[in-house]
């Protein structure tokens, strides 16, 4: 099986980035089509299409829109382009190659939920994508695709870019709302959910770049046309970001339900010569790791991965080959979560630091055998105890790494050096 170019059909064209090139290749046709529909019809189609959020949680988009209160309060649409999950780089490509695709999808979505104002929250490090989206917005405004009375439909909409400043937690929807309000990007308590009280305590819908872009294609092909791809419960195509120890890393669009094995060995070009697959993290760094055996069986859809005890997440496939030390890799992950914990809830604030310290004391040869069990205990007690999912995201990799590669950890504790590399941590990369 090869790639399915559905969202990424024209990504190889340089002109697709600009408004003219975009229009030439079928751009903004669906917007006109959508304006002829009633907003409820659009929500209905999206619901029927089975589109699930592409950001990580995989929640049904149509259902999310349905949570909005039925009143005339102003409501906001936020596009989550704060792509921070290690291993993910699909939104960046979408914004660079086809900013208008996102904008069109957003206008349609905004029309569906009757929002007058939307923001695209892009992480601050993405200098070039920000410039691309800003330019596209200017073009759209001057072409009358944004502003008052868009294309004579009587629908007004304003869109703006908000640039983040480097915080993983702002990728969490309530964290993003806090950040947009000018506060620290700390997640807010739920309930109330953002769909009821979000940005400025008004109803707010937060969707991923890929989700919003996909809305355009659902309008084009209808719910059934979209469902053509994917499995029964995981519909449509998805962009997977392949990275790590593969020959050809990159973004690949495949239908959901695509075998992970094919993704790595066909599209990704397989392992480097002489190397064997050791483990795969299938859904961004927060997803529990799969061993090589499990990875061979896995298909990339929400249900199958859940049955393997992991998750699809943001679709970032991180491939680890047999030259890598798993203790070291877990060290990079715990360091990441320790660095990115917002410091609000105690279990996460203290727990991420504790995990990081334990893993690093093992790495530096100070570990004790009971530390391995302690890692599991600490991670277990961080799960589900906090406002947002960062605590879970930090705990799950630890649990899976330790349980699936326990002998490596034990070797490291006993010998003070890596089982795979045979060297001490200090000699590994300094």
């Amino acid at each position, binding site marked *: 099986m090869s790639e399915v170019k559905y969202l990424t059909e024209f990504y190889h064209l340089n002109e697709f980035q600009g408004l003219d090139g975009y229009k030439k290749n079928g751009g903004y046709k669906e917007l006109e089509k959508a304006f002829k529909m009633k907003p409820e019809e659009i929500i209905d189609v999206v619901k029927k299409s089975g589109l699930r959020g592409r950001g990580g949680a995989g929640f049904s988009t149509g259902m999310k829109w349905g949570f909005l209160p039925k009143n005339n309060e102003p409501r906001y649409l936020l596009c989550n382009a704060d792509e921070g999950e*290690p291993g993910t780089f699909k939104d960046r490509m979408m914004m660079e190659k086809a900013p208008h695709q996102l904008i069109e999808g957003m206008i349609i979505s905004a029309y569906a939920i009757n929002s007058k104002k939307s923001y695209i929250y892009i992480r601050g490090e993405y200098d070039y994508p920000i410039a691309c989206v800003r330019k596209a917005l200017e073009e759209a405004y001057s072409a009358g695709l944004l502003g008052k009375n868009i294309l004579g439909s009587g629908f007004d909409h304003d869109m703006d870019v908000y640039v983040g400043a480097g915080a993983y937690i702002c990728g969490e929807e309530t964290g993003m709302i806090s950040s947009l*309000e000018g*506060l620290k990007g700390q997640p807010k308590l739920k309930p109330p959910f953002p769909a009821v009280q979000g940005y400025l305590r008004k109803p707010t819908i937060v969707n991923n770049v890929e989700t919003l872009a996909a809305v355009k294609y659902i309008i084009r092909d209808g719910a059934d046309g979209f469902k053509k791809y994917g499995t029964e419960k995981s519909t449509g195509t998805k962009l997977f970001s392949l990275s790590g120890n593969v020959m050809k890393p990159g973004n690949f669009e495949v239908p959901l339900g695509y075998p992970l094995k094919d993704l790595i060995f066909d599209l990704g070009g397989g392992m480097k010569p002489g190397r064997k697959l050791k483990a795969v993290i299938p859904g961004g760094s927060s997803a529990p790791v799969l061993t090589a055996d499990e990875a061979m069986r896995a298909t990339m859809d929400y249900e199958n991965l859940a049955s393997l005890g992991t998750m699809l997440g943001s679709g970032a496939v991180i491939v680890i080959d047999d030259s890598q030390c798993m203790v070291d890799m877990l060290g990079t992950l715990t360091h990441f979560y320790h660095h990115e914990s917002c410091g609000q809830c105690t279990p996460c604030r203290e727990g991420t630091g504790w995990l990081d310290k334990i893993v690093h004391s093992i790495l530096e040869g100070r570990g004790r055998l009971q530390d391995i069990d302690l890692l599991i205990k600490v991670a277990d007690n961080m799960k589900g105890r906090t406002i947002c999912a960062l605590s879970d995201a930090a705990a799950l990799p630890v649990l899976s790494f330790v349980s699936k590669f326990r002998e490596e950890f034990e070797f490291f504790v006993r010998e003070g050096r890596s089982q795979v590399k045979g060297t001490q941590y200090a000699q590994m990369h300094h």
Partner: protein
Amino acid sequence: MFQLSSEGLVEVKKELARYETKESAIIPSLFIAQKENKGWVSKEVVNYLSNVMDIPESKINEVFKFYTMFNQKPVGKYHVQVCATISCALVGARELSTHICNELKTHHGEVTEDGRFTVSRVECLGSCGTAPMMQVNDRYYENLTNESAMNILRGLK
């Protein structure tokens, strides 16, 4: 005393009017001020912005200290940030950052003697498919090797 240039001030005023709340302008304004203050935010900058924006210092300070893109210490002319999170680490980003440090005769997070470079290891920059990579000020350099990275850095004026 830190003071924004007149263009910077106009931009801050524009940002203040741009969003629904005044506080939303804190991040954009800090970016503007950081650019004008040689790449870092000092106490005076926060003080100044507080006066200009009419927002308590503690609020601006909270935001400034929360986000990693605001530097709390002076940095070199070129801030070299090497991503060292898992995807990059798998393909040798940490070795790369150590190599750059050795070549520039500096340590992570420190400014080189000539004041041109600060090398730091940072968390995921969203360029995992093209790892190892580094960000020099705003620009991404991807698919690096030890040599290509040093060539790029030497090529900077």
